[in-house]
């Protein structure tokens, strides 16, 4: 990173080494890169587990991974992707770009920021160590429903609980940091209606984390206590009629966290889409306020819908009806966003560079994920499709086709800012093609598998022509997708010698493009007074006017 000595405060010599400087850094950009790199490693691990699953399921009665090993792989894949990939990778991007986008020199609490990264890294070590625990890793799914998770032998489940405990502290600390930064460190002129939409989405992401994570921590603490002291604590196991607990209680606690968690993983990606589409359509976002407020609305309603994951447990009808209607209400602000993005394309000057390709890909597949959600919200239909491959397809359309695809768009978009060099456009387009095709071939048939009766989380299935065909198709698709990610890796490696990017390679609108690529410590020498949500667009226009 280009560092000019006069601006550098005195740093002890031992902290200046190539490795040591990263270990002790409190710079939000370096911490952001640490987050992204670590999450990348976890993506490789969890992605490998996903390919193992598809390899096992390519044919019925395979013996690649069976029984408890299969359950371990499913659990670690899901937990890894949710807790150790999506949430931290977004924390990484937010770390890097929130201060830059609001014209701040750093996060509000740089040391706290470092703490939250290192807690994440530590949680990751605890998580991975569970593979080596007696009895193997956790094998009760990423949801860890009791009584099954109470009965799991060995310490894999305990390490799983502890790793998530540590992670919740990391995320809560990070969330506080984001909120304080966004509220207090915006540059002159940047009112709430002028902050970039990515920052809006991180604001809601952070509040959601702060509200729902303590609930998860409480639930997991109860689980841990009941596992370790079975006679003393009985929150979830219904032993006896009076003294016992209820396994349903855990599900309520878990999903009160779990559903907002889905939005925690997708809202910042909505933010990325809202940044990229206007820049590559050469237009302002269509309906800034609608997009910003729909983010807030989604965040709010996401906390009122949790039990739509539990329609099959036999809740009273009035509760089913409430959770069905509340879930449907969320479709409205989500639909608003999709139409606002479409309208942003309307009468634009659309350039199909890689960031835009991924974001348009997001738009096309996320729509399918949103629509399949309506079936799951209508509880009688949910009774038929819940806990089947239909659900697996649904949430992969939302979280992979949605979050991951948008994230790749963000990666190609922001990489030049982070490292001063482009990711290859040529490789990027091929990566997009492989990932987009592979994704749809993998997950579309899973809707059909679920509808025709295949439950999720099974390591083998009936000999049935249709099931065998769809499973094979799905497995083939997963390898195509895997190859696409190798291309992403190739692009990253080759970017070391990639084309140099100037300050503002995409002619974008937000403040991060005002400084150098990569930005120096503390980011800016000066920040222009912000007069709209597009400060750099305004600046360019003023320059043109003065030239004319």
């Amino acid at each position, binding site marked *: 990173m280009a560092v000019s000595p006069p601006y550098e405060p005195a740093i002890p010599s031992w902290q200046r080494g190539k490795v040591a400087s990263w270990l002790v850094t409190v710079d939000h950009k370096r911490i952001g890169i640490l987050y992204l790199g670590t999450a990348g490693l976890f993506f490789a691990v969890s992605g490998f587990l996903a390919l193992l699953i598809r390899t096992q399921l390519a044919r019925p009665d395979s013996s690649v991974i069976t029984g408890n090993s299969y359950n371990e792989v499913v659990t670690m894949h899901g937990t890894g992707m949710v807790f150790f990939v999506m949430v931290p990778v977004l924390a990484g991007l937010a770390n890097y770009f929130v201060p830059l986008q609001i014209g701040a020199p750093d996060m509000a609490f740089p040391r706290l920021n470092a703490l939250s990264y290192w807690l994440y890294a530590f949680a990751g070590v605890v998580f991975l160590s569970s593979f080596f625990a007696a009895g193997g890793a956790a094998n009760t799914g990423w949801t860890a429903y009791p009584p099954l998770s109470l009965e799991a032998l060995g310490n894999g489940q305990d390490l799983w609980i502890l790793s998530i405990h540590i992670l919740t502290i990391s995320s809560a600390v990070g969330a506080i940091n984001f909120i304080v930064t966004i509220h207090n460190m915006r540059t002159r002129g940047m009112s709430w209606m002028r902050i970039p939409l990515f920052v809006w989405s991180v604001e809601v992401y952070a509040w959601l984390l702060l509200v729902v994570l303590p609930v998860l921590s409480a639930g997991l603490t109860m689980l841990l206590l009941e596992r370790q002291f079975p006679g003393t604590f009985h929150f979830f196991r219904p032993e006896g009629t009076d003294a016992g607990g209820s396994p349903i209680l855990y599900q309520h606690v878990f999903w009160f966290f779990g559903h907002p968690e889905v939005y925690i993983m997708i809202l910042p990606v909505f933010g990325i889409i809202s940044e990229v589409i206007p820049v590559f359509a050469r237009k302002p976002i269509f309906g800034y306020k609608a997009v910003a407020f729909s983010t807030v609305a989604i965040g709010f309603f996401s906390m009122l819908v949790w039990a739509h994951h539990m329609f099959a447990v036999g809740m009273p009808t009035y509760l089913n009806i409430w959770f069905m209607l509340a879930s449907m209400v969320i479709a409205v602000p989500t639909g608003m966003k999709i139409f606002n993005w479409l309208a942003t*394309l309307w009468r634009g000057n659309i350039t199909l560079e890689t960031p835009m390709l991924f974001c348009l890909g997001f738009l096309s597949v996320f729509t399918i994920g949103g629509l399949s959600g309506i079936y799951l919200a209508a509880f009688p239909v949910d009774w038929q499709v819940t806990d089947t491959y239909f659900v697996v397809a649904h949430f992969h359309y939302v979280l992979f086709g949605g979050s991951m695809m948008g994230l790749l768009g963000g990666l190609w978009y922001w990489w030049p800012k982070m490292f001063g060099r482009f990711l290859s456009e040529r490789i990027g387009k091929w990566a997009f093609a492989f990932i987009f095709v592979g994704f749809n071939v993998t997950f579309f048939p899973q809707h059909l598998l679920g509808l025709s009766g295949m439950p999720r989380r099974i390591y083998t299935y009936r000999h049935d022509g249709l099931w065998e065909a769809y499973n094979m198709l799905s497995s083939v698709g997963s390898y195509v997708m895997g190859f696409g990610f190798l291309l992403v890796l190739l692009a990253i490696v080759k970017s070391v010698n990639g084309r140099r990017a100037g300050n503002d390679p995409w002619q974008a609108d937000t403040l991060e493009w005002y400084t150098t690529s990569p930005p120096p410590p503390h980011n800016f020498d000066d920040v222009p007074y912000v007069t709209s949500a597009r400060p750099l667009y305004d600046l360019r226009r003023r320059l043109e006017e003065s030239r004319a």
Partner: protein
Amino acid sequence: MPPIVRSSRPLALVGAAVAAAVLAAPALAGNGGFAPVPPESPNAQGIHQSYVFISIFCFAIFLLVEGLLIAFIIRYRRRNRPRNADGAQIHGASRLELAWTGGPVLILFVIAAFVFAKLPGIQDVPSASAGNQNLVVDVIGTQFTWQFRYPNGVVAFDTMRAPEGRTVELHVTSPDWDVIHSWWIPALAGKIDAIPGRVNKTWFRAQRTGVFQGQCAELCGLFHAKMLASVEVMAPDEFDSWLAQQQQEQSAGTGPLGAEMWTATCAKCHGPSGEGDYGPKIAGTALVSDPQAVEQVIRNGFGAMPPVGRDWTDDEMTAITTYLKENLGG
């Protein structure tokens, strides 16, 4: 300026592959999984109708969104304009935005109204009439077996027999010491969880005879994938005589109950002939020839083995111990 590679090859590839994947699928069989398993009971029928009704709207919205997306990409792509030329600087349009807020609200209202209209037919157990009593069957999920208990004391494992055209009311549960399972025969209704400590109710009225497959739909551990279930629907008089015969055989200790229990409960872990699989080899051991020791293990569990038979009756215990002694004893 970024390098601008104007290549449409990847995009064409994308389109072709997706189209092929989507079109090839339904050709394979029946509805091809594009709708739930063909319903054979009024409640499954109601769910199926709701599914189709929702699909109409979803498909329309899908076409609208993807159509606009593709049309806009084609119509408003850069072509010969300079990359950085402004598009139309439109900041929004309140009426349009109100329309795509109000439209979905209306659609969701219609969907909800349809589903609520279908709900009683799906959820409510049809009340019995004088000539047509409901058959009540207790469905008990344990790791990794389904037990069916009929009002006259008859018990069956993994395969439920039911009469055609008569309402069968299912009381679904799991013992206190077990885990959560989920009862699901797609052709005969949606899922209902079997939860320790509570009894959930569902029902079906099969419209034709035949065997309908299903399986446990809630991760319940090691052999979740092997926790299969089926419902064999018989003609009513055939069913009545089957039930009577079972009652007689099971109380007399004759009949195949022991073998059924072995296949459903023991063989999944210990192998089809007790040769050992996940669980240890038990064929030919001294244990299987000792009914009291077997009962001890089955009722209390042993090591990793769950107490599979804690709640079995004495008749049932005799059936399994006799079977073990006769077929696996050394």
